[in-house]
Each structure stands twice: as structure tokens, then as C-alpha cells.
């Protein structure tokens, strides 16, 4: 009592695999359509939506670079201005010491 009949388990597993393969086969045969991977693939050439999607994608692709480029530019300009101020202050001290 309590022992598992391995032959019975193997038989049962084999049946399951067979039924799953049959199911996948039925699905593949029943759905022969081509699935489009993107929103623009199924559209005819010259469609308004193609142009709309392309423009929007380009805009959203470029805007992060533009935004963070401007922020980086402002930070760099502030850094340069601070360095210039410090250099000028250092020059003034050197001139005072020379006198």
C-alpha cells in the first residue's frame, strides 16, 4: 500500500502530451492568418495613419534627448559661469599679493 505504479503514470503522461500536441495542431490549422507585429504593418502604403504613427514615434523618440540635452546645457552653462567667476576671484587675489 502506498506504492505508485510507474507504468500507469507514464501512460497517463504520454496521453497528456499527445492530447496537447493535437490541440496545438488544431489551433495552427484553424488560425492560418498572419499576425501583424506593429500598428503600421497592416496599413496600405500612403495611408494617413502610417504618417501619423511615424511622426508621433519620431517626436516621442527625440523629445527625451532634447529635454535632457537642454537641462544638461543649462547645468554646463552654470558650471562654466561659476568657474569663470572663481578664476576671476583668484586672479584678483594674485594681483593683490603681487602689489
Amino acid at each position: 500500500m502506498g506504492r505508485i505504479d510507474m507504468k500507469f503514470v507514464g501512460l497517463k503522461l504520454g496521453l497528456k502530451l499527445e492530447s496537447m500536441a493535437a490541440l496545438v495542431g488544431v489551433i495552427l490549422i484553424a488560425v492560418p492568418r498572419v499576425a501583424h507585429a506593429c500598428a503600421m504593418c497592416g496599413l496600405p502604403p500612403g495611408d494617413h495613419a502610417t504618417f501619423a504613427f511615424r511622426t508621433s514615434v519620431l517626436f516621442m523618440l527625440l523629445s527625451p534627448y532634447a529635454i535632457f540635452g537642454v537641462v544638461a546645457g543649462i547645468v554646463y552653462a552654470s558650471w562654466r559661469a561659476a568657474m569663470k567667476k572663481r578664476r576671476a576671484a583668484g586672479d584678483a587675489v594674485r594681483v593683490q599679493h603681487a602689489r
Partner: protein
Amino acid sequence: MPSNSSAAVSRIRPPGSVKRPGFAGYPATRDDEREQPFISSGRLAILIVIASELMLFSGLIGSFLVYRLSSAFWPPPGLPRLPIQVTWVNTFVLLSSAITMTLAVRAIRRNRRRLARNWLGTTLVLGVTFLGVQGTEWVRLLSHGLRLSSGAYGGTFYILIGCHGLHAAAGVTWLACVSAIAMRGRYSAKNCAGVELCAIYWYFVCAIWPLLFGLVYLM
């Protein structure tokens, strides 16, 4: 046994009597200037906030472009056209407020407090005028049947322009606080960071509007 030096100092001197250069009325030396960061924390914070807000707007504009460019008729038949002439005047009002804000910042940097107060008040009035006209426009459009549920046309209009309106309302609230503080004479040439940060945010509100106006109203 090592002793805590700051605790030892505080036992000898009361906290207010410790002399620190560039602090509590003592003139700043060149060494203090060297220790200051090249960009203040407040400015960096407002730049990060504006950058994230711009990302939000770019997402909204991207979705608007998809709807606008893919449709053959804009506005769709049966829906009201947007009032362009009133909005031109409103754009002028908003851009004028950016100029008055610049004058306010310039005045406070030159320690002309009264002038700065006047320019801040003018900016506030112009901002409230812009919001008031926008609100009136919205009420009129709603009465003509343009709602958030009126397809892509109504949805994109209310979301894009509404998002800007919320930012303008936040800017006006901030401006009102800054004006109230300026009325009490708290700002000066050495202490004008509050006005400058508010001005940066207000410039953002003013700068994004022509883009939205061109896209939503004129395109």
C-alpha cells in the same frame, strides 16, 4: 577616552555666539564662495521637475499627433471649431506675463523691492486673466456640445489644454504666494531665490503654451 568636540564647544559657548564667516550677518569670504555649489539645489530641483513635466507633455502631444494626423477631417463634422481669435489674445496675455516676470526678477536683483512687487502683481493679474479666459472658453465649448467624450477631438483638446491649465493654475498659486511674501518685504537682492524659482516655472508654463496653441488650435 575620545570626547565629542562639538559638544565640548557647545558647553563652553552658547550656540548663538559661535562665529561662522558668511553666516548670521558675518560677511562671506572668498573661501565661502568657493564652497558654494555652481548650481543651487532649488534650481536643480525645479529643472528636474520641469524636465519630467515636459516628458508628460511630449507623451500627450505624441498621442495627439497620432489622432490628428490619421484623421482626414479635423474637427470632425458636427463638432464646434475652437475659438482662435480669443486664444490669440490670450496667448499675447500669457507671453506678456513672461516679460513682466523678467522685469520683476531684474528689479529684485537690483534691490528695487517696490518695483519688483508691482511687476509680480502685474504678472499675477495677467496669469489670472489667462486662466479666466480659458475657463470662459471651456464653458462656451461645453455649451456647444464639445465634451471629453466627443471622440478623439474633444478628448485630446480637454486633456492637453486642461493639463496646461492645471500647470498654469499651479503657477498662479505659486505666484500669489511669492507676491504675498514680496508684499511683506522679505525678498532682497541677496535673498531672491524664491522669485527666481517661481520665474523659472512660470517661463516653462509660458513657453509650452505657443507649442500647444499651434498644435491644437492652428494645426
